[in-house]
C-alpha cells in the first residue's frame, strides 16, 4: 500500500509541476506556440521574445542531457531506437502540434485553464492513439516497448 501511495504522490507531484510549467511557460497558449513555431517570421522577424519558448525547450534538453549524464549514466533506461514509424509519426505529430497548439500534456493543461475547446483536441488525441493501435494490429507494425 505504501508503494501505491508513494507512486500516487510522486506521479501527482510530477503532473502538477509539469502542468504548472507548461502553463507558465506558454506551451498551452495557442498564440505563443504558433509564434514559437513560426520563429517570429510572421510578426517582424525572429526576436528574443519570439524565440523564448524555443530557447527554453532547447535549454531544457541540454540540461536533461547533463543531468542524465551526471546522475544516471549507468542506469538501464529503455532504449529508443529509430524504427520504421519514427519519421512519418514525427511528421504527423509535428503538424498536429502546430495546428492544435498542443502537445498531449498541453491539451490537458488547456482543459484545466478552462479552455473548453481543448476537449476536442483531447478527444482527437485519444482517437488518434486508438486508431494507431488498430492499424498496428491490422498491419503488424511493431509495438513500441515503453510507455511514454
Amino acid at each position, binding site marked *: 500500500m505504501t508503494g501505491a501511495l508513494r507512486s500516487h504522490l*510522486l506521479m501527482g507531484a510530477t503532473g502538477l509541476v509539469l502542468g504548472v510549467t507548461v502553463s507558465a511557460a506558454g506551451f498551452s497558449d495557442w498564440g505563443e506556440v504558433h509564434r514559437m513555431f513560426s520563429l517570429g517570421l510572421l510578426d517582424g522577424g525572429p526576436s528574443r521574445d519570439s524565440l523564448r519558448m524555443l530557447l527554453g525547450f532547447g535549454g531544457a534538453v541540454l540540461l*536533461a542531457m547533463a543531468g542524465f549524464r551526471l546522475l544516471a549514466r549507468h542506469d538501464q533506461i529503455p532504449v529508443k*531506437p529509430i524504427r520504421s514509424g*519514427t519519421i512519418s509519426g*514525427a511528421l504527423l505529430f509535428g503538424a498536429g502540434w502546430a495546428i*492544435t497548439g498542443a502537445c498531449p500534456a498541453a491539451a490537458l493543461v488547456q482543459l484545466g*485553464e478552462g*479552455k473548453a475547446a481543448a476537449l476536442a483536441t483531447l478527444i482527437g488525441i485519444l482517437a488518434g492513439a486508438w486508431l494507431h493501435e488498430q492499424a498496428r494490429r491490422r498491419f503488424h507494425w511493431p509495438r513500441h516497448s515503453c510507455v*511514454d
Partner: protein
Amino acid sequence: MSGYLPWWGTALALGTLPVCYWIALRRPLGVSGVLARFTRVREELEFDRGVAAVNNFDQSALEAEMLALTREAFGDRGGLLAVDAPSTPGDARPAAGVMEPARTVATAGRACAPVPPLASHLTFLAMLVLGGAVVALLRGSWGAGFGAAFTAQFAAGPAGLAALAGGGVMVGFGAAMCGGCSAGHGLTGAGRLMPGSLVSTGVFFAAAVATALLLGWRAW
C-alpha cells in the same frame, strides 16, 4: 512580453523534471503513452494485475519450482544440476550447479521499474489539469479561451473545433507511431541521446515550423 516564464525558467523546470522523475520513480517520463493507456482501459487493468502478480511472487519459490521441474524432465544428475560445467580450466564461468542470480549479472546503475498502475497514471493526468487551473486562476485568465491568434486562424465555432479534433488525431496517431511526444522523445529521450528520440524531435519540430509557416501564409 506576456507574463510568461523567461527562457531560462522554462529550461530549468523542464530540464530537471525528467531527471528527477527517473531517479524517484525509475521510469522514463512521458505523456502520450500514458494517455494512450486510457484508450484500452480493460487491457491495461489486466496488465496491472499481471505486474502485481509478478511483483508479489516469491523469487526463490519460483527458482525452486523450476529446479524441481528440470529434475523431473532430465533426471537428478548429482546433488546439483551439472548443466554449466566449465569446458576448459580457464573458463571463467561459475562452477557446476552454481547459478548466479540475474540481479547480480546486470549490475550497472538503476534498473527500470515496471509500468505503474493505471490509477497512479490517472493521478498524473489529473494533476496536469490542476496545474493548468492553478496558473490560470493566479493569472486571472481562467476560461479566457484560445485567444485572438487562434480565432483569426480558424474562426470560432465548428470550424475551429474541427481543426482541433483533426489536429488532435494527428498528434495522437503520430505520437503512438514514433513512440513518444514532446516529453517522452523531446525531453527524456533526446536528453539521453537516444537515436529514435533525436530524430523524432528534430523531425516534429521541423514539421511544426513548416505547418505554422503554411498556416500563416495568408498573413505573409
